[in-house]
């Protein structure tokens, strides 16, 4: 039986209640939108890149606790990362929330390891990964809105 406090860890509840970087960063030059049709989570993600490195990140939107905390922690985690590094982070994060990461791999994720509990709740994986799909779209810069139904 999945444990609730594994899902709603302190860190996640904190970021859900007080999301960080909930703003439009000055000089943002990349932007993408994401939408989860199932539960109505909505995000607009903004990035400022310099020489292929994320210098600033922020978001606007609304959704469930898992979604909001994930977007908030994402904006912290990608700062200073190159596009390549950010995409690598997404791959490892995705492995974590879908239950494909072992303990050692989870530990490389730092604060993001708090999302390990999501893997016991398959319907919530989309909530945790929407912001990351949106990040990918913002980085690839095609500007098309992202939906988790795809």
């Amino acid at each position, binding site marked *: *039986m*999945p444990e609730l406090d594994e899902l*709603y860890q302190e860190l996640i*509840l904190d970021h859900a209640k007080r999301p960080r970087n909930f703003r439009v960063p000055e000089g943002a030059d990349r932007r993408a939108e994401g939408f989860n049709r199932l539960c*109505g989570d*909505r995000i607009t993600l903004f990035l400022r890149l310099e020489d292929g490195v994320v210098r600033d990140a922020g978001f606007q939107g609304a959704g469930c606790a898992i979604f909001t905390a994930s977007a908030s922690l994402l904006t912290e985690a990608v700062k200073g990362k190159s596009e390549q590094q950010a995409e690598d982070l997404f791959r490892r994060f995705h492995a974590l929330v879908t239950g494909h990461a072992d303990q050692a791999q989870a530990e490389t994720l730092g604060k993001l390891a708090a999302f390990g509990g999501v893997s016991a709740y398959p319907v919530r994986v989309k909530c945790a990964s929407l912001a990351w799909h949106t990040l990918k779209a913002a980085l690839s810069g095609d500007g098309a809105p992202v939906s988790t139904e795809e």
Partner: protein
Amino acid sequence: MANVVSIAAAAASLPWDVEVVRADFPALAQLVNGHPLVYLDNAATGQKPRAVLAALDNYYQRDCGNIHRSVHQLGERATEAYERARRTAQAFLGAAEPREIVFTRGTTEAINLVAATYGAANLRAGDEILLTGMEHHSNIVPWQLLAERTGARVKVAQVNDRGEVEMEEFERQLSPRTKIAAFGHISNALGTVNPVAEWTQRAHAAGAVVLVDGAQSAPHLPIQVSALGCDFFAFSGHKVFGPTGIGVLWGRAELLEAMPPYQGGGDMIASVSFERTTYNRIPYKFEAGTPHIAGAIGLGAALEYLQALGMARAAAYEQDLASYGAERLAALPGVRWIGQARERTAVFSLVVEGVHPHDVATVLDTEGIAVRAGHHCAQPIMDRFGVPATTRASLAFYNTRGEVDRLAEGLEKVRRIFQC
């Protein structure tokens, strides 16, 4: 025959004994996440009584033949059972004749059928289709498609703050150009019971034909289409505690007869040649191909079960649950629900301040409580109340006051976890 006599049905004249009723529904007696299941997602689909499971089993184990085309025993039995289900549906709805009952895949297909046949044959550019602001997407989109095809316009009677469409508003949106008025009997998102008989009178006076979406009323109210006065009535098998993939469109015989066919194929024809095809009589004209035979038989069993139970008694019991629920939930700080209509069923579209519906539903699920989080396929009414989604608890006659208490305790736990 597959008629498992229900203990609850035998007790029809006695006071409602919910434990006896529950014993007819095997799925209710299970643990979910270590807790006895509290199933409060009845507006999405109902659980199935043993009588339905037995009817399905009997068809597949004994009577499995195709209908209307076999001379052999099994085919005859299947045909007899299928047509008996049609007569049961006729009686359940108080319809004049069995041929007014068309089996469809569900409410959605029934509405699409009317839009694609009656609608396409009768609507012209400039005509109007009247809906309300609380319709399910399946009673919106087929009409939008029809409007696109014909140049007709969709008009919407707006919902007030209590979640009702007022009569003056309904009349304001009617006009001599209204050719079809289509509205839900009970809102799946709010639980509002609409005065459909009065609306039908007004719509008829304006010259419109009326379709009632009965997806949420057939499971909870006694239905007499003759008393409602409408022209079409649609409902889904799975919501009346029958199988998925089957439903009913009732239509007045003279309208059905005049309508063009829906799909072409076997069973819907009288004769076919490459020069000329003549169509079968109603209802077969609208039942092309091998239908969901087992589903129809299972639906018949579900309707017989409900009739034996007594829809009026079930509705009275549910009203008691609704008032108990309102009292219990209103006492919870930080919890409210949208939809305060004077006529309501036991549906609570809950908003927990500061907590997203999906988080509410996840916490409740770990307590074994099944509710639905989302927009309930009724985005316009969610927009109307300024919420992206709600957590909906929808009750049925097999739920108990104790389960309402479990819901209230679950909501208190939600507030503890999210500290609000």
